[in-house]
């Protein structure tokens, strides 16, 4: 993997990472189970299939892909939970599964679907237990807790037993639990899953702040708004392989060439044909009433200026807006199998500015 000069220290370095799970293959029913006892057969499932990745200090990387693409498995190998079947992982100079404890002192992990908290204890006890595990001094603990409280609003949650928290409260407490020791690297695996809009916003702005302060963040999510809010770099994986790794903006430019402009007109338009004639290749549609108009076009063949000129020539415009391509569109293409790794095995890697 080539290093780009301008880049600061690489914190996460992954090469040829692979994880194969073995599943027992059982025929249904009691007979199948008995046969399995005598003749054990297994099927192999490749969850991660040769991933290369390098993340610089202070970067915020979105790690996305459809269900079962291998996102969580990668994160679990990075955090030392799972032992890779093959390949190298190096996080802050450590091999996570070999130096699991030391690695855990440097990274913070949030799995949206699981909790770090001790289920039967008040949140405060869980945090104090983590304080002791990380060997934090009383003053530093108090300070960090106060700062986390400031953003996450923990005060009300501290005396509550973890199992009585609502999902949103639990997530706030879990974020605090993962960040109490001020880790240099934070893995967030679906941190906004199941949360309502208000809590989502809160979590996002919290993570943005974390990134702004120099923490390296790797974010796995299905919620594309999370990505656009937090990350500049996106890594898309599918079937255990990296299909795209690069700048969020360029992936949109490269793969989402379709733009659309919507207009509100001063007066009704008898037909859209005349505008369409001025814009070959573009799709011109009338809206629900004849004062609305939408033009969809390929960004590479037409410019917004030409579209605007064409519409202006035929009608008076009251209002207009351009729909920015959503990252959703890109990811949907990946899910639909339209984006594939380059034949040479590499990916269209772009330098992160």
């Amino acid at each position, binding site marked *: 993997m080539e290093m780009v000069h301008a880049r600061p220290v690489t914190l996460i370095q992954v090469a040829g990472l692979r994880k194969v*799970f073995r599943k027992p293959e059982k025929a249904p029913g009691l007979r199948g189970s008995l046969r399995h006892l005598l003749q054990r057969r297994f099927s192999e499932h490749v969850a991660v299939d040769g991933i290369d990745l390098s993340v610089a*200090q*202070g970067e915020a990387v979105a790690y996305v892909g459809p269900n079962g693409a291998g996102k*969580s498995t990668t994160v*679990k190998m990075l*955090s*030392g*939970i*799972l*032992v890779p079947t093959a390949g190298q992982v190096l996080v802050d100079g450590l091999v996570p*599964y070999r130096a*699991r*404890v*030391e690695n*855990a*002192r*440097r*990274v913070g*992990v949030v*799995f*949206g*679907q*699981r*909790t*770090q908290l*001790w*289920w*039967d*204890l008040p949140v405060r*006890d869980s945090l*104090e*237990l*983590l304080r*002791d*595990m*990380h*060997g934090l001094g009383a003053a530093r603990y108090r300070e960090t807790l106060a*700062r986390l409280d*400031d953003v996450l609003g923990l005060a009300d949650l501290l005396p509550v*037993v973890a199992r009585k928290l609502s999902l949103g409260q639990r997530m706030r407490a879990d974020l605090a639990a993962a*960040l109490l020791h*001020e*880790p*240099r690297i934070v893995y967030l*695996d*679906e941190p906004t*899953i199941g949360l309502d809009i208000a809590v989502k916003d809160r979590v996002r702005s919290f993570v943005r*702040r*974390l990134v702004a*302060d*120099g*923490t*390296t963040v790797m974010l796995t999510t299905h919620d594309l708004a999370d990505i656009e809010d937090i990350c500049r770099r996106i890594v898309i994986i599918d079937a255990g392989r990296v299909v795209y790794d690069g700048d969020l903006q360029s992936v949109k430019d490269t793969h989402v060439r379709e733009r659309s402009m919507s207009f509100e007109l001063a007066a009704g338009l008898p037909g859209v044909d005349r505008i369409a004639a001025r814009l070959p290749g573009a799709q011109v549609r009338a809206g629900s009433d004849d004062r609305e108009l939408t033009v969809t076009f390929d960004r590479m063949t037409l410019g917004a200026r030409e579209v605007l000129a064409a519409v202006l020539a035929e009608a008076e415009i009251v209002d207009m807006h351009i729909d920015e391509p959503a990252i959703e569109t890109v990811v949907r293409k990946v899910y639909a199998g339209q984006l594939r790794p380059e034949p040479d095995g590499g990916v269209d890697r772009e330098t992160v500015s």
Partner: protein
Amino acid sequence: MTFVTAGAVPLPADTRSRRIRAYRSMARMALKSLLAYQTSFLFGMLASAFGVLSMLYLWRSALAAGPRQGFDWPQMKAYLLVAFVVGSLVSSYTDYRMANRIQQGDVAMDLVRPVDYQWSRLAESVGFAVYEAGTAIVVVLAAAAIFGGMPPPDRDTVPLFILSALLVLPLRFGIVYLSGLLVFWTQNYVGVQAARIALITLFSGALVPLAFLPEWMRVIATYLPFVGMASTPALLYTGSLDGSDATTAVLVQAAWAVALWWLARLMWSAAARKLTVHGG
């Protein structure tokens, strides 16, 4: 306002004192979380208390005609009560929780903590044991009151008895932890746990002193780890085990405690490669 500035907070070198603090804290929290379920725990205790009472009634009538296999009634009473107390340590909390978390995949969260997995489970077991021993002693005192007191420990073997009773904890932990790890291979824990309990009950002499078993079984039992979980400390209490036999028995206990610990380490490294965490 800054949160975290990468590299600004240097990571202090790992120290023994951090680890000790971590495990002590875990033991304390385990005890505390058990207190949250006091009612269910007390019901469990009540059930085992009835078990002890019925065993005492049974043995009292069995020994009414005179001593058998070297046990008279007061000795048998002491034997059973000591076996009950040490047998209540490291009960099913440790392995039940462990197996559950492994099956559900929550073990992932145990592994992102900066502590050793096995030491953590031991620390928790010690926390539970404080409560287990406390309640067991209450049961024993009540039982002793009902059955006309309990003879004091044999003077000569008291130091060995104390050592032996303390060794029960790592021994029982070893077996319980190892059986908990088996869930990586079996997928279902209920059967493993039942087998473990049956083995311990039979070969530890907690139900019937080993002297009552057929010769061949007794010989096998002497070299198994289970004998140290009830029989050895109970016999040392009653003074039935003395001299070089007593020392050997305690040494066997210690050897098994160490062996099980390292066996568990080996098993864990194999299990870690098998670990599959589905979803999230």
